[in-house]
């Protein structure tokens, strides 16, 4: 049987029986989603790759605890979410202590400087969106990213995050309102700047 046709549960059973190589099927299935989620959360592509690797190792270690009647996608995104949050909190502490020691005064709080080269084609509007996504409160950002970029339903988000559906609805609604307000405002500002430059 073609490996790609196997269900997640069948692959997991196979891995648990000792066929470790079958785990690669799961990596192929979920790596882009996981990296997408982590990149949106951290806004650092290199770190996202590194965290995603740790996530998959953690998934492998925790496979015996996975209950087959549950959604595997929720299982792995729960791990991804927790590890990303851990990383973000560690970053906060690192920046705090480095600031305390007077080493890095100019660094943007809670974010490492991106190590990858900035894409020259990335429009200013995209930059605005990324910046505003990053400025959202943690819970709102998680809910919004899971909904918009990973297209999870509210029920699936509930499984991942453990929040109630009304809470998820509120978080996403507030995140959208906030983004809408901020992005419109910044669009206007950038429009003024552009007009001034043209003049």
């Amino acid at each position: 049987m073609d490996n790609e046709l196997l269900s997640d549960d069948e692959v997991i059973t196979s891995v648990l029986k000792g066929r470790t190589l079958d785990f690669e099927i799961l990596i192929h299935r979920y790596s882009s989603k996981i990296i997408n989620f982590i990149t949106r959360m951290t806004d650092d592509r290199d770190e996202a790759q590194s965290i995603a690797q740790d996530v998959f190792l953690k998934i492998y270690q925790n496979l015996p605890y996975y209950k087959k009647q549950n959604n595997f996608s929720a299982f792995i995104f729960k791990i991804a979410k927790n590890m990303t949050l851990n990383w973000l909190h560690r970053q906060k502490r690192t920046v705090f202590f480095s600031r305390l020691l007077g080493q890095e005064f100019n660094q943007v709080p809670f974010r490492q400087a991106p190590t990858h080269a900035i894409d020259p084609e990335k429009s200013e509007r995209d930059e605005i969106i990324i910046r505003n996504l990053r400025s959202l409160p943690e819970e709102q950002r998680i809910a919004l990213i899971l909904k918009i970029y990973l297209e999870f339903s509210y029920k699936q988000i509930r499984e991942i995050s453990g929040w109630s559906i009304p809470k998820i609805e509120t978080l996403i609604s507030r995140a959208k309102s906030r983004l809408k307000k901020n992005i419109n405002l910044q669009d206007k500002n950038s429009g003024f700047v552009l007009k001034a430059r043209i003049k």
Partner: protein
Amino acid sequence: MNCENVCLRLSAYQDKELSLLQSQDLERHLESCAACQVELKALNELLSRLGRLATPAPAPDFSSRIMAGLLTRPEKKYRLLPSLVPYSKFSTIFKKKICYLRDLYCEAMLAYTLACLMIFISGFLLEISLNVQPAIVPQPTTTFSAVLAESRDLGLLAVQDSTMELFSNLKQISLVKKQDNLLSKLLIPPLQGTSLRSRVSGDDYEK
């Protein structure tokens, strides 16, 4: 449905998370309300802008690096808790707990805790052994009459203090009770307001 309620639920409507009935109510309102239509349009525009961001792709060697990491992971050679788990026999929660215990860090913590416990118990035992009181050597009891004789030589105050020390024994106290009147009247005349009666305190005396 008023505009305020609609605005609260527009996001869920856009995400197609409302029930059929709720969606129909909302659509009915939208048909008649221009402000809410503008709001929905703005939300749709935002969504399209958010969706325009490029999707990051995994590195080409992403899966091979993970698989290499998995296949070259060293086996744990030493375990404080040996393989005591026939997993299938236990419930999932218990299985999980046992598996946590098997984790190396937990083993280290367990060893540390045991060491602390041992130190605490040994310290406790040592303290107990140091605090054991030596066997009480029975002292020759002084009879009441002997005290009296002695007290007469030493004076009233000396008699009262020494007798009070001896009177810790109940029998001796009762002896004092019985003979108190006689003592105070005949043998020990009260001096400066102190008497044997006043020094023997407690309810027992009254009985």
